């Protein structure tokens, strides 16, 4: 977007805001704001980490927009498949940056926020020319996801598995 005429940049900004609004609305209408936050933060964070890496490889700054959007789409693809393709989630969908298993990782929303923050600073550092710092921060973002997936609780296969995991009854029943 850098260097584009003002009219084109404004159009891109409007298109981006419209897309994000439509995207968020699809989740909110289904009562799944938690999933929206989870997959958006992970996707955008990893997209920016990838942008940092690409910027380091090319030795010149990379625009964040397409990487962030690409990451968001990759991370949310199984949800788009559910809504538009009517395909329920399946374990193979972990290919999309751990889409299924990350739900049962320890504190998944905080992990997602960590990935987002690390990915953002990775991109910033790499764009500023601090390629080593950018690469390290990007690797930390990816490493955080790997660690979360390595320690996730097994997904339930029987109804008994649900009672073995802690619930938030105190919150809902207060």
């Amino acid at each position, binding site marked *: 977007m850098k260097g584009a005429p003002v009219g084109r940049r404004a159009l891109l900004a409007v298109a981006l805001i419209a897309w994000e609004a439509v995207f968020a609305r699809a989740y909110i*209408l*289904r*009562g*799944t*704001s*938690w*999933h929206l*936050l989870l997959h958006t*933060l992970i996707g955008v964070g990893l997209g920016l980490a990838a942008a940092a890496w690409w910027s380091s490889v090319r030795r010149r700054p990379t625009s964040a927009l397409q990487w962030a959007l690409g990451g968001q789409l990759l991370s949310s693809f199984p949800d788009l498949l*559910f809504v538009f393709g*009517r*395909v*329920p*989630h*399946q*374990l193979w969908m972990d290919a999309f940056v751990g889409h*299924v298993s990350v*739900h*049962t*990782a320890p*504190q*998944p*929303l*905080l992990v997602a*926020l960590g990935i*987002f*923050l690390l990915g*953002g*600073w990775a*991109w*910033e550092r790499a*764009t*500023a020319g601090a390629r080593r710092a950018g690469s390290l921060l990007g690797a930390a973002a990816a490493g955080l996801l790997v660690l979360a997936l390595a320690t996730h*609780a097994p*997904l*339930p*296969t*029987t*109804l*008994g598995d*649900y*009672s073995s*995991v*802690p*619930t*938030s*009854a105190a*919150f*809902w*029943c207060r």
Partner: protein
Amino acid sequence: MVRRIVALGVAQVAAIAAVAAYATAAPLVPDSGLEQIDLVSLHQRVPGVGAVAGKPTLYLAPGLTTDPKCAAALSRYLRSRDTPTGLPNRFGLVVIADGTVVRRLALPRAAAGCHPGYALVDGRGFVRYRTYDGGYPDHTGEQAILLDALR
């Protein structure tokens, strides 16, 4: 560089604020991350639970219907049955009145009256999915996608 750092800072503060705002309104990890996960991972028989007329069936635990909010949600859900916004008649629907069955379906908070949920049963009577969903009357599209997968 300053503009870039400011833009990044704004985005990151917005993300932190969004997570904080969410956490004040709902559990940070709803139902251990399993609420509305839309993954059919069960295959289990449960006493007192079966398919209605061999059709994929939704077993609804609406919470205590003595609670006006729960009663209104249930009434709205039942009224919308087989309308464009409701659950289609090609699926069975059972409203569970027995708290024991609700607990067998691993929905103890629904049995306690505080949080509705449902279980999905395939045409052969196996329980295949269960979730809490406080907004279930508005999520019939999601329920239909999952039930269609059980046909």
